[in-house]
């Protein structure tokens, strides 16, 4: 199969337009932070659109997973890095050529850029030939690249470039500076006088001494005296410099688009794997999830919130992983328990895992099976907006209504602490109504709530509870466990600490 793109196997899958707008739920799931961290330092590739577009097709996801797996081979990864490095340096040369004023300088930078490009292509062809590749994407690309490197436009470009560079390197000239004039002529094997002086004084060498060499800026721009000298040098070597002129005119469009597109698109994988490496160094696990568009019995073991973990690693703090699974008819996680115990983090993790899986990336966890959703809807508690004339409760309900209207049975819904702006009675009532809708639609859902009653509404819901250290309820474990929602567990442990439980009180009141 002919190579088309390293991100999309088939032309018709390609992104029609590259969106610069993150999906709506990014902010709630902290995916904006995650993607920012992934693409940090790679702005020049403009990778965000790739991360903003989820794939709707299992095979398209597998295409990327295969490539990602190939790239986990450190050898291949380094090969690609070195290729990108060269392409980057090629672009840097072109940018400089653009800024320089004197023609011979522009031409030399252009020549160097092409030389780097040829080297990048040849090295990659060679490197790829030594690697065991399995992915459809890389196999097709390898064939394409090998073919290109052997094509006559490329081989003759390479030969011309090499010859011209060698010629320029062989240029050596002499300057005689006396009062206000410079004489420029060819070099005639005069001896190095500095070395001779140095040698004469060699015997006095003691230890290290100060370096008195004046430093000259290594800027490439030349002043008119240097430019004048260069013009004379060109006159001393007329053949070389006229060849240089012709070469530049002829090869203005040397760069093949497929290759420059590959250079950009492969960064999607490189960026993500570099991001993953940071977590792996901290002992966290990643896996390639099994993706299904039928089975909703999803699970993930030892998962974590990418955004939070990224922050914690930077602070050198430890990270708590959590497990979840849904089996049989279970569809909904109802998460309750003490605040600051990791409930929101759990909800975000669920959303992040599904989203990252949908763009073909490995996800946090030891083992995972995830659902291929059509859309993700999130509803997180928001600050009240002044310019919004509706009351907060009304606002909540409008948004939930919109979500439920747009959602299909293949959608994922994540609700976080909604309905807090009303009485408990109202909240229970409304909560049950909303839950019933979700249950009806058979959607996958995480529902973070303070309303215990919602946990056991149906066989479709699973109760998850954030936990505390029994001896010291002030300490959170950040573990979210499958357990009936009993608001009491938390209250009881505090009571125990103050010896105010029934048993304690009996004991204390005995005497």
């Amino acid at each position, binding site marked *: 199969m002919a190579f088309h793109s390293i991100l999309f196997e088939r032309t018709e899958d390609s992104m029609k337009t590259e969106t610069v707008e993150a999906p709506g739920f990014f902010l709630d799931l902290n995916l904006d932070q995650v993607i920012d961290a992934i693409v940090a330092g790679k702005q020049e590739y403009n990778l965000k659109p790739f991360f903003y577009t989820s794939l709707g097709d299992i095979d398209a996801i597998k295409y990327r997973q295969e490539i990602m797996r190939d790239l986990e081979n450190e050898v291949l990864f380094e090969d690609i890095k070195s290729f990108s490095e060269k392409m980057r340096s090629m672009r840097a040369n072109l940018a400089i050529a653009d800024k320089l004023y004197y023609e011979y*300088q522009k031409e030399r930078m252009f020549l160097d850029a092409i030389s780097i490009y040829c080297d990048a292509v040849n090295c990659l062809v060679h490197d790829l030939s030594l690697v065991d590749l399995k992915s459809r994407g890389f196999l097709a690309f390898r064939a394409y690249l090998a073919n290109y490197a052997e094509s006559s436009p490329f081989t003759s470009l390479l030969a011309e470039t090499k010859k011209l560079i060698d010629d320029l390197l062989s*240029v050596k*000239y002499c300057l005689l500076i006396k009062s206000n004039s410079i004489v*420029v002529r060819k070099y005639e094997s005069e*001896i190095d006088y500095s070395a001779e002086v*140095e040698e004469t004084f060699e015997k006095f060498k003691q230890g290290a001494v100060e370096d008195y060499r004046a430093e000259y800026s290594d800027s490439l721009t030349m002043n008119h005296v*240097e430019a004048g000298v260069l013009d*004379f040098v060109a006159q*001393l070597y007329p053949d070389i410099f006229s060849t240089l002129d012709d070469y530049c005119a002829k090869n203005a469009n040397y760069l093949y688009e497929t290759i420059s597109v590959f250079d950009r698109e492969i960064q999607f994988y490189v960026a993500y794997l570099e991001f993953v490496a940071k977590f792996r160094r901290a002992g966290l696990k990643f896996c390639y999830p099994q993706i299904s568009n039928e089975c909703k019995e999803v699970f993930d073991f030892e998962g974590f919130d990418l955004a939070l973990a990224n922050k914690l690693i930077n602070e050198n703090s430890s990270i708590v992983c959590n497990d979840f699974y849904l089996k049989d008819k279970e569809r909904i996680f109802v998460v309750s328990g003490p605040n600051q115990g990791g409930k929101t983090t759990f909800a975000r993790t669920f959303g992040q895992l599904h989203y990252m899986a949908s763009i073909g990336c490995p996800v946090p966890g030891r083992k995972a099976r995830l659902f291929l959703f059509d859309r993700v809807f999130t509803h997180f508690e928001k600050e009240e907006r002044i310019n919004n004339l509706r009351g907060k409760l009304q606002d909540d309900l409008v948004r939930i209504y919109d979500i439920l209207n747009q959602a299909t049975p293949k959608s994922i819904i994540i609700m976080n602490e909604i309905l807090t702006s009303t009485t408990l009675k109202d909240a229970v009532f409304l909560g049950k109504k909303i839950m019933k809708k979700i249950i009806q639609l058979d959607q996958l859902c995480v529902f973070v709530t303070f309303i215990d009653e919602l946990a056991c509404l149906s066989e479709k819901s699973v109760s998850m509870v954030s936990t505390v250290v029994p001896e010291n309820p002030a300490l959170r474990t950040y573990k979210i466990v499958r357990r009936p929602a009993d608001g009491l567990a938390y209250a009881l442990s505090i009571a125990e600490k103050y010896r105010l439980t029934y048993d304690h009180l009996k004991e204390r009141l005995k005497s």
Partner: protein
Amino acid sequence: MKAFLMYRDRDFDLQRELPLNEPALTQDLELNRLLNAMALDDKFLFEVARKAVLSSLSDLDTIVYRQNILEDCLKNSSIVKDIYDIAVESIESKKKHFYWFFGRHPSPSSLLHASVGVIQMLVGFLKKLKNIAEEHANKFESAGFTTFFAMLNKELEDEYLARVQDHLRELKFRNGVLMSAELGRGNKGINYVLHKPQDQKQSWLERIFASWLEQIFAKKTPAYTFRIANRDEMGARALSELRGKGINLVANALAQSADHILSFFNLLRTEMAFYVGCLNLHDHLAKKGEPTCFPLPVAPGERRERFNGLYDVCLSLILKQRVVGNDVSADDKDLVIITGANQGGKSTFLRSIGLAQLMMQCGMFAPAESFCANICDGLFTHYKREEDVTMSSGKLDEELSRMSDIVDNVRVNSLLLFNESFAATNEREGSEIAGQITSALLEKRIKIFYVTHLYEFAHGFYDQRMENAIFLRAERQADGGRTFKIIEGAPLETSYGKDLYNNIFRTDN
């Protein structure tokens, strides 16, 4: 070029770290008195003496190497001082010559100009040194001086000095700066290399002949000339920058060479400073009629301590009259315990041991008629101190903490001087602590001198009749008078504090 007057094959490093217990040693042995006598108010001499005395040598060969050089110095003190003065003068003149560079980054042109001047001047001083070498070398016998003079003669041959002069003249670039370059990134010139301009020492006839030949045979290689217009200041700057690139390396090489020659003089000054310090001290003692001798060092593994007329040099330096010397023969002993009368000269004796050891191990003479001791690998002092002013720890606590620091650093064949240590508690406990520490140190093969009042401790060791222990006592005459002599003798139960009391309170009937 190296002076090698402190070590056979390396430089004396003034930056070298002193042993960690340097403050204790300085304080306990009152070292600064010794160093002041060597320095005679010269800060540099003081610093060198301090470093040399405190960084003890541990190899016999180097000690003897320095002893021989010092012997030469004693015989030829005025020549030695001349050499020292040349070194000092050269350093001073460079400072005068170069002071205007401080804090600036000179251009290669001005750097080169100044360096040519400095080297011209330094070469003058080198010639002076060489003259001394030619004139006086035969008066010196030590390996150190012989090698030093031979080195001066060899390295500063006339032919070589003439070559240096040639370069200094050439580097004024009367015929312009000739350099080659290649094309670097962006076709900008790189690898500027300076080349020798045409030799101008030809006679006019040769020159005419050469140019005539050139015209006939030389392939006319094209040359293009670029002239900077008179008002083109940017151009003039660019031209001088280009010239700077050409002479950058040679200017650097020359400035560095000036530094190197100067550091040779610095080194010479530093190494000579030690001997000048020794001469100063020797003068002082000789005028008083105090004896000095070259000590006989013995390998560290052995145990030697044998001397005649060993006196406390620091005490002598502050007294008008001569001080009492002691004779001891304590070969093959690891432990020397000194007991006896207060004010009987025990502390002075202990200090004289420490000072003589340090003086021996830096290659100096010893304050004695004769002195032989084994080299020690580290000298440590543990002296009773005044009450801790900070009140942060109890006195015994403080003593033990210092002891613990010593234990962290002590090694096989170290020498440890205890003065009234662990007496801050009652005698029984103090003795127990002192006994346990001493026994452990002895088993580690550490040599110990212990001045103590702790009778139980001293007697405990005496009763063991150890072959490697010796007991000394401050002498006390029958009438209670003190001779300040230390003699061999078993520990006595009282330290004659009563005498002292009586003496001071005049209750003796």
